[in-house]
């Protein structure tokens, strides 16, 4: 009787077995795919690491091969030879350049020496010519002549005596006595280079104070002579801070210089 139609109970049992079977199958499937995922993941991570390390290693190896440590003895010998040759060339270059530097320094020194010599010469020439104002120790000679008895040649003598005493620069009443200066005048007037000198002449001479004073005050010297004139007094005083003005330059206007040689 039970064969023709399954009872509801049988159907239920069958259903239960079926679902249990399917459950275990799906559980197996889940486990399998989980295992598979773990397998693939770990292997993939391992291979990723391998790839990364491989590249890093290759790059390191490439730099290492390029370094000197990896060169063979023969190559090293060649490299040393090349470097030595290069060093020699550079050493020669250094020596050559040093020589040139030395030469250049010499030339500069020569030129500097020449220049300073020329400057010295110019200095002494312009000092002699009285083209520059000068200052320094010296003496002040004050001559008074209320009776106007002094003549131009007396002043020429004063200047000559001072020059004899080593005067480096002379000025009378703030007019510089230069190499071309001349005294003139008459009738009690004294002119220096065309300028009339005021009375109470003040002569300033730069130089060794003792020598200059001696040149004038020597017994029987110029001072003694001058003071014998009526009314004339001569006072000589040493001073440390004296200055004389610059004279004016005189060029050739009629004559012309002659170059020797």
């Amino acid at each position, binding site marked *: 009787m039970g064969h023709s139609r399954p009872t509801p109970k049988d159907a239920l049992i069958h259903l239960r077995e079926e679902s249990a079977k399917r459950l275990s199958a799906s559980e197996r499937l889940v486990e399998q795919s989980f295992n598979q995922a773990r*397998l693939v993941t770990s292997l993939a991570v391992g291979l990723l*690491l*391998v*790839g990364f*390390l*491989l*590249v*890093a290693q290759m790059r*390191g190896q490439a730099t290492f091969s390029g370094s000197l440590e990896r060169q063979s003895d023969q190559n090293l010998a060649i490299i040393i030879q090349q470097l030595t040759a290069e060093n020699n060339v550079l050493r020669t270059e250094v020596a050559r350049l040093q020589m040139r530097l030395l030469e250049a320094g010499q030339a500069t020194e020569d030129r500097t020496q020449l220049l300073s010599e020329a400057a010295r010469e110019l200095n002494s020439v312009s000092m002699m010519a009285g083209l520059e104002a000068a200052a320094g120790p010296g003496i002040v000679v004050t001559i008074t002549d209320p009776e106007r008895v002094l003549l131009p040649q007396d002043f020429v003598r004063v200047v000559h005596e001072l020059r004899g005493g080593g005067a480096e620069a002379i000025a009378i009443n703030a007019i510089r006595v230069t190499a071309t200066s001349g005294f003139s005048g008459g009738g009690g007037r004294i002119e220096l280079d065309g300028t009339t000198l005021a009375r109470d002449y003040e002569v300033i001479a730069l130089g060794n104070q003792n020598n200059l004073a001696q040149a004038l005050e020597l017994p029987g010297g110029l001072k003694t002579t001058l003071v014998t004139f009526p009314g004339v007094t001569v006072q000589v005083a040493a001073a440390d801070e004296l200055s004389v003005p610059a004279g004016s330059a005189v060029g050739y206007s009629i004559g012309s210089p002659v170059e020797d040689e």
Partner: protein
Amino acid sequence: MLVLALALALGVTLGLLTNVSVPVAALTYLGVAVLAAIDACLGGVKASLEETFDDKIFISGFLTNTLMAAFIVFVGDRIGVRELYLAAVVAFGLRVFENLGTVRRLLFSRWGWE
């Protein structure tokens, strides 16, 4: 299989992009370690084909093999036997070829080429 090839390619690209260079002093260590890592990966592939793969075994094997390989080189350096790294190279090289052969045979049997 495709995922694994992609992972390897990704590792190589990553290495190229990051511009990492191993210092000269560490070259030998990492060289042997890389060999050990290749061996471990081939072993893993073999195990997965034999369906005996266990991720714990793979990861621990990967780490211990690489570290041990580097350590052997280090010890060789320290005790004055610089050639000790050759031992690691030979051992891992042999295993690499062994594993490669097994993987090849397993693949052939799986694809039915035998």
